[in-house]
């Protein structure tokens, strides 16, 4: 198949866009893993909960302020509505995460890891049916949001026919990446969290409330997953099963990057996103298998992943 430079560029951009979404999911997962030592199987459901909630909130906002008109003002109003929906969604996910950690997870930190897997899997199943209860069995179409954003012709500026929605995701994703690294490198809370990750006992000794850090970290993870879900509201429809694939792919991402390494998660997410996107044009059957193949390859060369463990550097 002949691949023109433009097509290659578009595919790469698609890959980067998907990579940013993956990073938002995987970062929450990896932070929880790095500090709580818990593999949160319900993370994908939090992601999809975010997507469903965002659709609902967005519909509500548009219902209140009326459908966005044309022109600059209408466009601005529309983008603000999308951003507001995203933020409200993330704010809703925050207490969900807090409750999960404080009510369920906290009881079983000292048990075998198996029980944590069973617990988070039980939460996955329960969340699945909670979604089914609230939003019904059938998928929810989301073309409205998608096509309305795409109607904004930002891409005409550079003469490349590329969906504005994807540009939006890349922009929001970049802000999240910068924000996360800033949070962990520069803020006091971020440093406290990292200190807890490196040496839990020492952190306790210098007066850090590890209980609270754990809750905070889990809430942060849920926040990120919900945020990702809200931003990534899939172009066509939101389905009950939409949480599974991102969950498994973010496992791959954090294994590639090194367990619990934020930087690794970022590199891994972009790598997986881009290669998966290339595969779609080059060899479609390889789309699902490619990320796992990269993972196996990297593990053969570097068993501990591309970057070390978390805490020493963000």
């Amino acid at each position: 198949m002949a691949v023109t430079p433009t097509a290659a560029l578009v595919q790469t951009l698609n890959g980067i866009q998907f990579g940013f979404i993956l990073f938002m999911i995987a970062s929450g997962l990896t932070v929880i893993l790095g500090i709580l030592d818990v593999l949160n199987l319900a993370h994908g459901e939090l992601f999809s909960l975010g997507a469903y909630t965002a659709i609902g909130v967005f519909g509500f906002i548009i219902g209140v302020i009326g459908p966005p008109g044309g022109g600059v003002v209408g466009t601005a109003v529309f983008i603000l509505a999308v951003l507001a929906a995203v933020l409200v969604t993330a704010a809703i996910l925050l207490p969900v995460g807090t409750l999960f950690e404080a009510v369920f997870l906290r009881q079983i930190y000292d048990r075998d890891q198996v029980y944590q897997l069973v617990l988070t899997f039980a939460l996955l199943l329960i969340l699945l049916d909670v979604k089914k209860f609230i939003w019904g069995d059938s998928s929810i179409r989301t073309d409205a949001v998608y096509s309305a954003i795409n109607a904004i012709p930002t891409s005409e500026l550079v003469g490349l026919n590329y969906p504005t929605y994807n540009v939006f995701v890349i922009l929001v994703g970049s802000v999240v990446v910068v924000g996360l690294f800033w949070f962990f490198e520069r803020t006091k809370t971020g440093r406290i969290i990292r200190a807890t990750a490196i040496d839990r006992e020492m952190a306790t000794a210098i007066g850090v409330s590890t209980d609270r850090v754990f809750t905070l970290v889990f809430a942060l993870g849920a926040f990120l997953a919900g945020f990702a879900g809200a931003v990534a509201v899939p172009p066509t429809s939101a389905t009950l099963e939409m949480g599974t694939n991102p969950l498994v792919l973010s496992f791959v991402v954090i294994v590639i990057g090194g367990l619990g390494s934020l930087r690794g998660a970022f590199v891994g997410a972009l790598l997986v996103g881009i290669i998966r996107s290339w595969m779609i044009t080059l060899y479609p059957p390889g789309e699902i298998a490619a990320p796992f193949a990269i993972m196996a390859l990297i593990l053969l060369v570097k068993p501990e992943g591309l970057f070390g463990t978390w805490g020493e550097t963000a």
Partner: protein
Amino acid sequence: MPERVDRDGTPAYRFLGVEVTRREAAFLVLGVVFLFVIPDIASLSDSLQLSVIHQGLLFGFAAVGLNLLLRHTKLTSFGHAAFFGTGAYATAVLARYAGVQSVGLLLLGAIAAATVMAAIIGVLSLRHTGLYFALLTLAFGQLLYAIALGQSALGGSDGLPIRPGPANQPLLFGTAFSPDVYQILTYYLTVVVILIGLFVMYRITQSPFRNALDAIGQERTRARFIGLPVRRYVWAAFVISGIYGGVAGGLYAVVRQYVRPEGTLFFLRSGDILFMAILGGFRTLVGPLIGGVVLVFLQDVGQDVTQYYEFLTGMVLLILVYGFPRGIVGSLRSGGIVNTRLSELRREPSVLSTWGRTAAQSIERKVTEALTSLRIILFGVD
């Protein structure tokens, strides 16, 4: 013939290396008889389907294999559906492309394929322990799932039918049977395989090999210092557990005569297998088998009763984690939580209200804690 021995003062019998007290022997005989009469029991009621129990036993058998890793080496494999699926797909491919008709040969193929697969995945993922190992096995399982889904030769998402030869079904003892008879016969084949498998697992767990695995599970470095070839032993255990998965998968394919990626290789199946082991009690030998039947039964019956059957399963798992961490068999054993609580209740019935009060109080405390944390996260400490 059974030979009488003395075990800590109680008379016990030893036969083929299996040592049981009289009480255990009764349970054993009862269990075997029960396995054999299940087809008759299943014909009594519509809600008890032989195929459901059969499927539960097969997944439970895979869980018995997984349990070897879980119980002794403390390794949590989250990709055991990989071996189940490998066995199933090997059977399907042999039947479809090589025209193999005999059930025995198909099962041998399944075993061979699962052994090779377990050997490869073992080498790659056993460099790690803990969560990393769980993640790796999961990822390899999903890789196989992706391959089965992506290759049109393997039928993609439609899967592969197993209808070799003119009889359109695998042959038992070189003969084709009518569907009803075939179902019963394959069930008894499963029972025989399970009994052999349990016997082998029992022997393994009575051997020095098990002690070595226990030592490795407790403390790897120490195990290496006392001279155990840690990597090789864990790898052997991994391959053995993979073979159990492969046998189960091969039988599943022969029984269902159809394999799909969703039903055999998907990571939720891996989760099912893991949870069967824990549900039944992973510190016991037959626990995983019972957990398998219960979990599959729960999912099937739940599907008939309510559309929210995942919620039901989730709740059962939650209750399991907090109330009965030793699983069904582990809790029912003498000295287990159920017996202890029952005897307490018999002695003093009013203890019930105390339990209720304690539970309510602890839930209330947890929610208060969570709300406090939330307030602190959102508004800081005041």
